[in-house]
């Protein structure tokens, strides 16, 4: 997006301009969007912001290629907006405020330049076009930060969910329980299996009770994963007991021709635990 080196005098005048003392004028958009009732910044911070922006824009306009958006000067400006939006988002601000601030800053900047130089920049199409191009790029970088931030939040939530969705508990010495809640897909089965097998190795668990009460539906792939999981547990040398198979899941398993012949099943988790205790020779009695 290179700016054509046209015959526009005003653009040439703009690039030749000595910029100074416009920082105070540039504070207005910051005050308006960050200092009102949302209290995202205090007045000193806005003043710093304007100063920094003035230096960056002056170095861009004074650089050899002001229209080149890969130049170090432009990248410095982009970085400034990236950091600004990161800050604002971190403080609980909205992406809309940063975008509005950026748009407003463009108008304020042209205004301020007009006032200090006396040249009517707002009359020149090429100057307006130039600034529009620059500020569009900057708004893009603001959005990039916003999207990155969102993505990170989503990932963190998913990781959190994965961890909490499959709690493996040692309910008795050598007896692990694994309540499975929600849907099992390949990805999740893999994670659960990995966690479970490592846990068996670590705790020397003799029995694992897998509770399916929380599984609403099952398809052929998922049931295959389930059988796989039971096999892996048995291969490690532990007993696997599957409990809490709902009627609809039982029906599905039968119609899918899944062979549960070598898999111990019990109606409820408590029956499963009793079975595990029985196999380990533990007796629990009423006092």
């Amino acid at each position, binding site marked *: 997006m290179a700016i054509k080196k046209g015959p526009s005098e005003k653009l040439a005048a703009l690039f030749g301009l000595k910029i100074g003392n416009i920082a105070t004028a540039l504070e207005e958009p910051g005050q308006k969007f960050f200092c009102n009732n949302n209290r995202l910044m205090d007045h000193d911070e806005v003043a710093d912001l304007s100063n920094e922006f003035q230096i960056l824009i002056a170095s861009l306009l004074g650089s050899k290629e002001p229209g080149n958006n890969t130049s170090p000067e432009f990248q410095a400006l982009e970085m400034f907006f990236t950091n600004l939006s990161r800050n604002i988002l971190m403080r609980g601000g909205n992406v809309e405020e940063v975008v509005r601030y950026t748009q407003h800053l463009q108008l304020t900047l042209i205004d301020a330049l007009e006032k200090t130089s006396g040249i009517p920049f707002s009359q020149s199409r090429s100057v307006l076009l130039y600034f529009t191009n620059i500020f569009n790029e900057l708004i893009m970088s603001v959005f990039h930060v916003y999207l990155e931030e969102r993505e990170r939040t989503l990932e963190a939530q998913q990781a959190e969910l994965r961890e909490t969705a499959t709690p493996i508990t040692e309910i008795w010495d050598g007896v692990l329980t694994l309540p499975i809640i929600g849907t099992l897909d390949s990805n999740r089965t893999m994670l659960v299996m990995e966690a479970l097998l490592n846990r068996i190795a670590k705790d020397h668990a003799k029995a694992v009770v897998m509770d399916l009460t929380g599984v609403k539906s099952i398809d052929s792939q998922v049931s295959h994963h389930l059988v*796989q999981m039971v096999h*892996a547990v048995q*291969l*490690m040398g532990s007993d696997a007991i599957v409990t809490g198979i709902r009627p609809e899941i039982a029906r599905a398993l039968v119609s899918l021709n899944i062979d549960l012949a070598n898999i111990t099943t019990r109606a409820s988790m408590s029956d499963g635990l009793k079975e595990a205790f029985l196999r380990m020779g533990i007796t629990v009695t009423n006092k």
Partner: protein
Amino acid sequence: MTIPGLHLTQIGGGDFLLEPTKNLNVRDLSRLVESITARLMQARASRLYYDLSGLALIDPLYYGWLDTLARAAKTINVKMICINMQPTAAFALSKFITKMPVFETALNI
């Protein structure tokens, strides 16, 4: 009588412990099975513990070896029990077997 690629030790009564080394060549299946069964028969063994603790992964080839050995042991009334299977190996193995293997498994002896 040493068998290349493994250590076969009598650990008391009719129990034997088989510890494979890194040099075990499972392609040389028939000769290995023959030597092991001969040794087990000679000592009137009843159980063979196969230690899998050094094995991070079990591929179909290795499974084939275990399966053959277990079935050969069964013919002379020796029960083969695989011990110390690593989580990663159990995971890999469960991916390609469709029914439980001939040998038994245990956490440890």
